[in-house]
């Protein structure tokens, strides 16, 4: 009896310790970046573009614009595709009796699983070969957004699938039994109930685009100028951190940019929390 109690206490202590350690490491990383980086941050830092060259002087305005531009463009491509694919896989795929379609669906599911685990640089290389070179989009927001779409589509498809599966079948039955069509049922009953999960996937994808580096290194180029069109090259904030750290002497600026980046990611996570709480209320 006592032995069991000791075992339990040991187990709980170990869990507490791991939990505490995780939080500590996270606080240390974020704290280090923010404390070290904060000295460099002022309004000017946000409002001026990098000056380029080895000095690494200047701010990050153009990289913020490039990041926002790229996130929006990617989501414009990826959201409709990913959500539609998720809807198809959950709501329609199993009702199609054709052997060929069934095989295709199995293959698509396998594809989604695999794509979700592919390292982002592979999508980068693919994007470089197809969009940058073959299709002559060059290093541009467009090329990067298309490569980014390949990267986040599995995320959106999977979160959409999970969200749709979580909608009780009784909602669908009730709607169909009233004479609603299948699409009406999905549009008016199923999707509104799943919107929390689906939007979580979209915000997660935005976070992915903000934080990925390698894939955009080979598709977006690295121009520090403010992108003005879909065909402009650019650098996202994450990419800028990489350039500053590796190719300039301004390590402090890299930390400052990283601090802004970290805050942005924290903000995105807050948005996920708030959106899901607001939508499920």
């Amino acid at each position, binding site marked *: 009896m006592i032995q069991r109690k000791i075992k339990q206490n040991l187990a709980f202590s170990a869990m507490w310790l791991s939990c505490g350690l995780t939080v500590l490491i996270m606080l240390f990383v974020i704290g280090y970046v923010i404390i070290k980086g904060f000295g460099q941050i002022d309004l000017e830092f946000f409002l001026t573009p990098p000056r380029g060259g080895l000095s690494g002087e200047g701010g990050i305005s153009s990289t913020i614009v490039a990041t926002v531009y790229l996130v929006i463009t990617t989501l414009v491509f990826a959201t409709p595709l990913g959500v539609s694919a998720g809807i198809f896989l959950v709501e329609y795929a199993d009702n199609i009796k054709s052997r060929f379609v069934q095989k295709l669906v199995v293959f698509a599911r396998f594809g989604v699983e695999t794509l979700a685990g592919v390292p982002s640089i592979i999508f980068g290389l693919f994007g470089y070969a197809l969009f940058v070179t073959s299709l002559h989009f060059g290093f541009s927001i467009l090329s990067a957004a298309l490569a980014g779409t390949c990267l986040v589509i599995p995320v959106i498809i999977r979160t959409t699938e999970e969200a749709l599966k979580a909608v009780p079948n009784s909602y669908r039955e*009730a709607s169909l039994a009233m004479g*609603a069509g299948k699409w009406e049922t999905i549009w008016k009953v199923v999707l509104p109930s799943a919107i929390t999960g689906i939007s979580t996937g979209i915000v997660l994808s935005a976070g992915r685009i903000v934080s990925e580096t390698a894939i955009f290194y080979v598709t977006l180029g690295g121009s520090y100028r403010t992108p003005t069109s879909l065909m402009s090259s650019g650098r996202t904030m994450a990419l800028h951190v990489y350039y500053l750290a590796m190719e300039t002497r301004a390590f402090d600026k890299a930390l400052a940019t990283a601090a802004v980046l970290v805050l942005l990611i924290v903000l995105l996570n807050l948005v996920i929390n708030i959106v899901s709480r607001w939508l499920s209320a």
Partner: protein
Amino acid sequence: MTKEGVMKTIDYSLYYGDFKALNGITVNIPINRITAIIGPSGCGKSSLIRSFNRMNDLMSNSRTEGTILVDGEDIYSQDVVRLRKKVGMVFQRPNPFPKSIFANVAYGPRIHGIRDKSKLAAIVENSIRDAALWDEVKDDLGKSAFSLSGGQQQRLCIARALAVEPEVILMDEPASALDPVATLKIEELMEKLKRKYTIVIVTHNMQQAARVSDFTAFLLTDSERAGNLIEFGPTIEMFTNPVDNRTEDYISGRFG
């Protein structure tokens, strides 16, 4: 003895894949009466009631033989949307949508094309009144349907079904998830509703069948586990003087 029904099945069989769930059912559902379908678990009660509005179509491996007529027309030769508008359904567990009370009841009329706000409001009020729920919710129509109790939710689901003005209401064990007081309210409601509607109810509860129904259909599985109609007739006769021994055994509680 019975008037010509709005619904009847003629030698109707239902298969799920290779499994025969219902075997050659012929039954005539009398108009403006409550017909109970009773029988032990797994005898095909739910399969039968879900046949009337083609809900079994949702199972991709289901297949039917024989005929079901609604308003004299084969259900498979009429548009499924029109059929389901005519033949409404209330499910075992209350399943309101995660929407407001108003939006739940307005859902049906809206999908059938009614946009006019005052018209919708009138339909919603009438339906909720007919479902004996109006006095409890009239000030809270904008509240989530989930704020209601289980019994209220089920009456809301009945209101939702009434809102598309069906001729028939199918109820698949509508009170099995409810407490006795809520059950009583549903039963009283059914009594009222049969003046305007033809009602079919599946129930596990023989007392309930005896209390509410005018006619009873007794189903039982045969040696291949397919549901067969053993006996159909006025509830009073069936419960006092059943023709078939198996009906008597079931009703007197010897099995099931």
